[in-house]
């Protein structure tokens, strides 16, 4: 039991740097498209690790299932929102950032 708890804590801690990376990318990356990359992928992994860590420490199977379901729903929402933002940027004629043109 102690091992599982410890693994849970480790997974939650492992998720943190990815949330930070998502925010860092949002601030540092040069255009809307690259920022979307940071938000969707880093937060997906960060949330996945946190959810997995919390599920290991959950008091019941239902609570663990609920956490995993939340992850899946967030993934669905973030992938869809990301596509919509990228498409609207593309339709407005926003060109992807390019190092040579800067």
């Amino acid at each position: 039991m102690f091992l599982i708890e410890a693994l849970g804590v480790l997974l939650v801690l492992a998720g943190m740097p990815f949330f930070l990376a998502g925010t860092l990318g949002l601030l540092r990356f040069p255009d809307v498209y690259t920022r979307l990359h940071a938000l969707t992928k880093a937060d997906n992994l960060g949330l996945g690790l946190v959810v997995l860590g919390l599920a290991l420490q959950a008091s019941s199977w239902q609570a663990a299932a609920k956490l995993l379901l939340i992850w899946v729903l967030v993934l669905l929402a973030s992938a869809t929102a990301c596509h919509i933002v990228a498409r609207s940027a593309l339709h407005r004629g926003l060109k992807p950032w390019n190092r040579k043109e800067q």
Partner: protein
Amino acid sequence: MTLVRSTTRYVAALAFLWWVLGGTEPASWAVGLPVMVLATALSMAIAPSRPWKWRLRVIPAFAWFFLKESLRGGIDVARRAYSVHMSLQPAMLNYPLHLPDGPARVFLLNVLSLRPGTLSADIRENTITIHTIDTSLPVEQELRELEKSVGSLFAVDLKPEQETGNE
């Protein structure tokens, strides 16, 4: 008949979701039930459902593949965000789809946005527009493999290369 069946399925799936998230608290269902009905009606109005199914025996392999790719994608983009010089070489690419029109395509678009280095930006006819964060990544080859996996998950056949008729 099919409309009744798909509506019932939709409501049942939403009810299950609500139950997992909110439990059996009556007050929560006072909100949940109307929202379920509205969501179903809205979904039917916007996008009449097309039948689709997943091959059950392919699900574990696909789930494993998806988890692996999520890990790779997250690490890849985190590495770029933390690095001092941020190795970015972004570009837009057009990719002719081999998957037939339908839910499998929507699924593909969502999954590819969570994989390393790619982001779905648009879909027109049989071509998708993808933003890649680094043109040195083997984007096309990985997309082809992803299409195959999604095709096998949804039990649909891919169109052969020459018939996709890009442009």
